[in-house]
């Protein structure tokens, strides 16, 4: 008879309490906005959600006594999974209580898409401005990781955060820049805030955006979610300047944030020395080049249109933002192929982008190479190297398992989504768009960002895929194994 292992329930509860409190405070932003703009349905929903959430968070976090706890991997996973599920569940209520949607599943989908920075929507109606703001806030929180935020502002929590950070931060390894995890988390968030401010200012300078538009677009691009505030998307502004600014900040947000720290502190002035960053830029440039060429060869469009679309769209998908520039454009098959591939590769590790991550893909290619050498010289021992550093064997095997699991989930999702009866390509890209947190489906004839046509149960499944994709699968999958709940070893 296996007995359930004991977790540090109190410490977990306290952490979750603080998180709820934080979420409640975040709700104040759209609440105030609703009050100012007299958005009736927004006021209705936030007047109920915000105070209750704040109250609940306060009660939990103050009633559970401060308690020094040492977390193990197991607790790291349980905290991350429960925190994210809790945030999404609570975050869904503003959507549910307003007149945006009548079904909680849609609200849940919307909230998941918010926190996981996927940026797709469950209804084919536009969100009201208040809800748009709420979605932007959740994007911003989800982008860098909501628990990392908690760790960074509350180092005195008495919890060693490395397992939490490890479980939440995207990428194969969570590199500690500083001695304490909380300091590293703080650095991450400071960079994040700096970028947000910078982009906001630059977008305001364009003169075509209101402060509200700029805010929404900024959070949408810096968290690589792809949120816009007009039904026409970015095309509404019809400004190359805005497109370029958004693209640049999407790329900046998809670069390993640790690099910025090294840059600022002078540890590594030349960012191009970082092999992952270099590979990322090469992928983007190559993608833009091929897409432009292919559009010029097959289509009748001018060089300017081709370059503009290719530039924006490749960056948008490669950073897993999922902005759509021209909804009515029909991409040649080669472009679709490139867009799909960059979407699968994703951005760099420890960034706000999703999907496989460039470093993992690099390791994968090196492993293929090693396979060749191993076959010619079966007794040789070859280390996998990224740049000058050898990647340790456990990390390599972790990456191997990661990619294999990712592909398995993708293929399994094809089977599940095929119940919808859509064509092959749409099914495939939908699964990939969800798992990579891009949120944009490049169909054979049209691209779509709203998933209202899916069956409610499938929408629930899609939400699951988004969460699995954002948390890099394992925190969720591990919780589903018997192993996790088995006897402590």
């Amino acid at each position: 008879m296996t007995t359930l292992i004991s977790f540090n329930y109190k410490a977990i509860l306290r952490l979750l309490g603080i998180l709820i409190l934080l979420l409640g405070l975040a709700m104040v932003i759209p609440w105030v906005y609703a009050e100012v703009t007299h958005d009736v349905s927004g006021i209705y929903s936030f007047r109920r959600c915000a105070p209750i959430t704040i109250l609940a968070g306060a009660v939990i976090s103050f009633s559970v006594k401060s308690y020094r706890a040492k977390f193990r991997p197991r607790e790291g996973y349980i905290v991350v999974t429960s925190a994210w599920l809790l945030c999404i569940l609570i975050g869904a209520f503003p959507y549910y209580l307003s007149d945006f949607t009548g079904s909680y599943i849609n609200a849940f989908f919307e909230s998941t898409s918010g926190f996981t920075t996927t940026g797709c929507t469950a209804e084919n109606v536009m969100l009201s401005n208040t809800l748009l703001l709420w979605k932007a806030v959740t994007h911003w929180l989800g982008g860098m990781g909501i628990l990392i935020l908690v760790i960074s502002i509350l180092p005195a929590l008495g919890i060693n955060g490395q397992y939490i950070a490890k479980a939440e931060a995207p990428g194969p390894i969570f590199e500690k820049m500083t001695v304490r995890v909380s300091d590293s988390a703080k650095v991450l968030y400071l960079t994040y805030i700096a970028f947000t401010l910078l982009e906001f200012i630059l977008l305001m300078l364009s003169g075509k955006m209101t402060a509200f538009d700029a805010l929404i677009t900024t959070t949408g691009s810096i968290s690589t979610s792809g949120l816009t505030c007009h039904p026409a998307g970015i095309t509404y502004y019809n400004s190359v300047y805005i497109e370029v600014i958004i693209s640049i900040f999407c790329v900046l947000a998809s670069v390993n944030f640790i690099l910025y720290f090294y840059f600022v502190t002078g540890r590594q002035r030349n960012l191009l020395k970082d092999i992952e960053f270099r590979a990322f830029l090469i992928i983007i440039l190559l993608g833009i080049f091929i897409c432009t060429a292919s559009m010029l060869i097959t289509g009748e469009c001018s060089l300017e249109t081709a370059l503009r679309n290719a530039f924006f769209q490749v960056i948008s998908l490669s950073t897993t933002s999922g902005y759509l520039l021209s909804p009515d454009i029909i991409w040649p098959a080669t472009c679709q192929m490139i867009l799909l591939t960059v979407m699968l590769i994703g951005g760099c590790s420890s960034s706000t982008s999703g999907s496989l991550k460039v470093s993992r893909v690099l390791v994968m290619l090196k492993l293929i190479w090693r396979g060749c050498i191993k076959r010619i010289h079966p007794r040789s021992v070859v280390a996998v190297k990224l740049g000058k550093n050898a990647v340790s064997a456990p990390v390599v095997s972790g990456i191997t398992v990661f990619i294999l699991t990712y592909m398995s989930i993708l293929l399994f999702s094809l089977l599940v989504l095929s119940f919808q009866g859509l064509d092959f390509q749409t099914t495939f890209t939908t699964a990939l768009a969800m798992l990579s947190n891009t949120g944009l489906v490049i169909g054979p004839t049209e691209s779509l960002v709203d998933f209202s046509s899916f069956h409610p149960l499938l929408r629930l499944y899609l939400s699951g895929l988004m969460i699995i994709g954002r948390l890099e699968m394992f925190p969720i999958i591990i919780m589903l194994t018997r192993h996790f709940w088995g006897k402590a070893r």
Partner: protein
Amino acid sequence: MNLDAKFTFKIVGITLMVIGVSMLPSVFVSLIYDTPAVLLSFLATSLSAIVLGRILLQICRHSLTRNLKIRDGFLIVIVCWLVSAVLGAIPFYVTGSIPNPFDAFFESCSGFSTTGSSILEDIEVLPRGILFWRSFTHWIGGMGILVFAIALLPSLGISGQNVAVSESTGPTLTKPSSKMTDVAKGLYLTYLLFTIIETILLMFGGMNLYDALLHTFGSVGTGGFSSYNDSVGHYDSTYIDIVITVFMLLCGVNFNLYILSLRRGFRAFWEDAELRLYLAIIAVSSVAICVTLLITQNYTSVKDAAVDSTFQTVSILTTTGYATADYETWPMFCQMIIFLLMLIGGCSSSTGGGLKVIRVLVIFKLIRRGISTRLHPHVVETIKPSNQNMPPDVVSAIASHMFLFIVMIFCGAFIISFENCDLATCFSAVITALGNVGPGFGMIGPTENFSLMSNLSKFVLSIYMIAGRLELYTLFILLTPGFWNSNH
């Protein structure tokens, strides 16, 4: 001429002779059915191949007494396959049956790699001798011309172990008896036995000897060439469907098990985890497809639904590619199952292609181990597909094989996308070629063919078929500089 070049030419010579000789049955068929022009050009090809091979062998006769290195093993395999594919294409071209040389090469690659994809829009107009040759390449390719060579080469003083590693399909070669040559002979006897039994059974079903042989070659080699445009659907006979299903199924099983079972009885089958999974996949997929078809009312008769779903499942999983129904008219769910089956493929050491069931099994075990190492970072666990531990080297080879498979699919699909077709066509064309399946989705479904593709796509797909048949790495290794550097 240096030693390596001489050695290579010797292999070329042997291959030319073997393939030349194996054309003779087709020439005989041509003698019965075809016009003298076709017969003559066919005969000329065959004889000149034999003569040329003999000459090459004569020139290079002093090249070999040394031990084979692994590199040489790879070289033999690749040279053999490429030479066979090119030589196999010549009859199609010379007789004027397939006027485009790229098409002829495609058809020949598809034959030898037991893929069964075709560029022919109307199969039935071709001379019968040519059709016989087309199917016969499946039979030769089925067990690998090289395993032929395992039986032949030892007489030349070459030990076969190294060759077998790169040739036989699947990650591990469990040696049922001590000598490689004995194994090869055992495999061939089994293969021959299946061929004879199936031919007889098909003739009971009303086929004439010619058709029965053609379909036997197609199913025993898990190839999929038929002599009719509607493939096996032409006969519309449940009996034939079932016979072919059974033999496709049998040939998708690890052939070593048949030899093992002589010694260990039925237990040999049951103890094999790969076989269990293989049968489970077939059972689950067939039932799922059958039930879906009945629910969506694509079929009204349970019997028809059951036979068709099982036939299609087995045909795709064993990477044969025969069709009795157009699965593209089925619901998307069924199509997705078919798509996934295409990726999986048959068992190791069978005539089937694809990733192989054992690899899929190991992948799942790897994922499982990955999860437990995340919880307990210091635990050391081994991968056990059956009762035995799998050496870590083999496991990592399987992982890198998977990665190469994924990367090759994307690269291939990128090239195919120049056709400007839908992505389903791009991906399925590559997967079907790499897995040696045959039909795909979209433009290249079971009722369509590859004739609309450009020469570039056809050529790339031809190479992919051979790459898939040779387990990717064998061909890919040519691209590494280490391979060409003999000091390495």
